[in-house]
């Protein structure tokens, strides 16, 4: 069988258990697909030896009848996750050569569940970006193509999205601080879920903005998202913000029955200048949920407009603090020093050489908004606005809303380099529909729902109640079934 890399997680899991093929066979097929995917620049550190060793061990487990959910399934890992003995750079020059002596909680959980790691995936530097153009490894490229332009796979989990969409792996890990799972999922026609803040341990995930960061799976289907999310979730004593709550069997909750569910359509998300095809897709999505038996009602989230500005205070502020650790002392890059250079020269030169432009800008903006005299005007005000944004959601959930339907992105994937001349705000606007979810700590999922006029994938986002990922995935599953999105990018790479 030569197309084993095209399987979904659930298909591969079932086939492995039935003995139709082995994990070694699936893994080898993925490794060949990766070897031929240089033009996508999705995998940046390949780990074929680890993969084959894990695949053999998985086959032995399956043969012995001990096959947990992810057993034998080859996946890619975003470069933000610390993987023991394997390069972990967060897409940054400043972590060049860093090989952690420890394994992140999430990768530990995935490996314990039998998952096979194919390698590390490209991403925006420190997860700061919406196009994968800030990576030290260069751009990841979207496998979707409609003319001679190379398109962005989105960001920051751009390598993860490209790899899953191009069938280089069955699924991948992503992380989401302002939309970094959901926006690239939408740009590449795959499913991506950011769970409730606290569902997944952040231990061993390189920190960007700790109060917003959450990891999640990027998969080909909602069923796969349910399977992989369950393997990633759970309480971890090493992350004090991880929730000590039972993890449900998310897959068992995919009943397809959403009769009587109340779906909110937030009027503030109908932005001025919203492209016609996005508005149309959104309306169609609402019709599909209605046809499946849900009740669709208009709701109001009055502080929506202030989410992006609040995010661009809070995220840089937290980043400036988190990234203070990259000082050229304990790991990664240290600048060459001139005779007589002191320790401050070492810090300043190291950070100027090691951080790319966008990261430097955000660290400095964060430094500014936290500095004496501006802390109240910017940082404290943003945290108050964040309280109001969260309250907007609490109010609509209190009215009985089960989930909220919105577009995932304001457009389809754009060309690499097309935004380079615009000011940073234009790039930030990519996250206009997703960033509210991080500020409110809610679960959000992006589901591929249609194609743009030019033939590029478009996604819809569903936002759920806290800790209700199972219910959310069930509604997403209904939407996925109704939308019937089956298109795949035509192979050109």
């Amino acid at each position: 069988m030569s197309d084993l890399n095209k399987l979904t997680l659930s298909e591969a899991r079932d086939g492995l258990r039935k003995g139709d093929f082995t994990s070694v066979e699936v893994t080898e097929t993925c490794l060949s697909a990766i070897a031929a995917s240089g033009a996508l620049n999705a995998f940046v550190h390949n780990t074929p030896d680890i993969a084959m060793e894990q695949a053999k061990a998985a086959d032995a487990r399956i043969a012995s009848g001990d096959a947990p959910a992810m057993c034998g399934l080859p996946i890619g890992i975003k470069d933000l996750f610390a993987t023991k003995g394997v390069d972990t750079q967060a897409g940054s020059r400043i972590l060049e050569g860093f090989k952690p002596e420890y394994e992140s909680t999430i990768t530990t959980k995935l490996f314990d569940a039998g998952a096979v790691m194919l390698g590390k995936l490209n991403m925006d530097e420190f997860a700061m970006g919406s196009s994968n153009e800030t990576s030290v490894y260069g751009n990841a490229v979207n496998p979707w193509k409609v003319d001679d332009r190379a398109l962005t796979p989105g960001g920051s989990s751009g390598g993860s999205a490209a790899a899953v969409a191009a069938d280089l792996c069955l699924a991948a890990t992503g992380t989401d601080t302002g939309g970094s799972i959901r926006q690239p999922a939408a740009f590449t026609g795959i499913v991506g879920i950011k769970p409730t803040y606290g569902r997944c341990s952040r231990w061993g995930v390189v920190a960007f903005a700790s109060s917003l960061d959450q990891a999640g799976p990027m998969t080909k289907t909602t069923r796969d998202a349910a399977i992989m999310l369950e393997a990633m979730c759970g309480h971890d004593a090493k992350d004090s913000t991880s929730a000590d709550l039972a993890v449900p069997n998310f897959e068992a909750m995919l009943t397809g029955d959403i009769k009587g569910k109340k779906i909110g359509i937030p009027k503030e998300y109908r932005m001025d200048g919203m492209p016609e095809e996005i508005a149309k897709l959104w309306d169609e999505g609402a019709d599909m949920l209605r046809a499946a038996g849900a009740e669709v009602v208009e709701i109001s989230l009055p502080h929506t407009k202030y989410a992006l500005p609040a995010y661009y205070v809070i995220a840089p502020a937290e980043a400036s603090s988190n990234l203070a650790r990259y000082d050229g002392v304990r790991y990664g890059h240290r600048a060459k020093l001139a005779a007589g250079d002191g320790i401050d020269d070492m810090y300043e030169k190291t950070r100027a050489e090691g951080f790319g432009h966008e990261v430097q800008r955000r660290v400095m903006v964060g430094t500014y908004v936290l500095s004496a005299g501006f802390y109240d005007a910017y940082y404290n005000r943003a945290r108050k606005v964040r309280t109001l944004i969260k309250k907007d959601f609490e109010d609509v959930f209190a009215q009985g809303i089960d989930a909220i339907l919105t577009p995932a992105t304001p457009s389809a994937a754009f060309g690499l380099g097309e935004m380079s001349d615009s000011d940073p705000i234009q790039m930030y606007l990519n996250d206009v529909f997703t960033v509210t979810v991080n500020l409110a700590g809610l679960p959000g999922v992006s589901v591929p729902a249609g194609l743009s006029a030019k033939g590029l994938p478009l996604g819809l986002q569903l936002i759920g109640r806290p800790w209700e990922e199972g219910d959310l995935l069930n509604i997403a599953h209904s939407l996925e079934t109704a939308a019937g999105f089956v298109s795949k990018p035509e192979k050109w790479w």
Partner: protein
Amino acid sequence: MSIDIDTARRVAKLARIRVEEDALPALAEEFNAVLGFIEQLSEVDVDGVEPMTSVTPQRLKRRVDEITDGNMQEKILKNAPDAREGFFAVPKVVE
């Protein structure tokens, strides 16, 4: 609020990022673009609103204060750009 070149220089210094003198005007301009965007927050009525400290209402877990780990000097120094005799090495800090 507008950021001038002196402020840009001061912020770069606080962030411990070397920015050459000729790059400061462009940096100040970028700051102003971002801060102009953030400025919208001043329209919001936040009287009596508590600043968010935790997005989930959970109380942080407590644990017994005890030694659970240690004795891994070699592992800790393994990734250091300059480690000598069991220590991180840095340029001279005391005259």
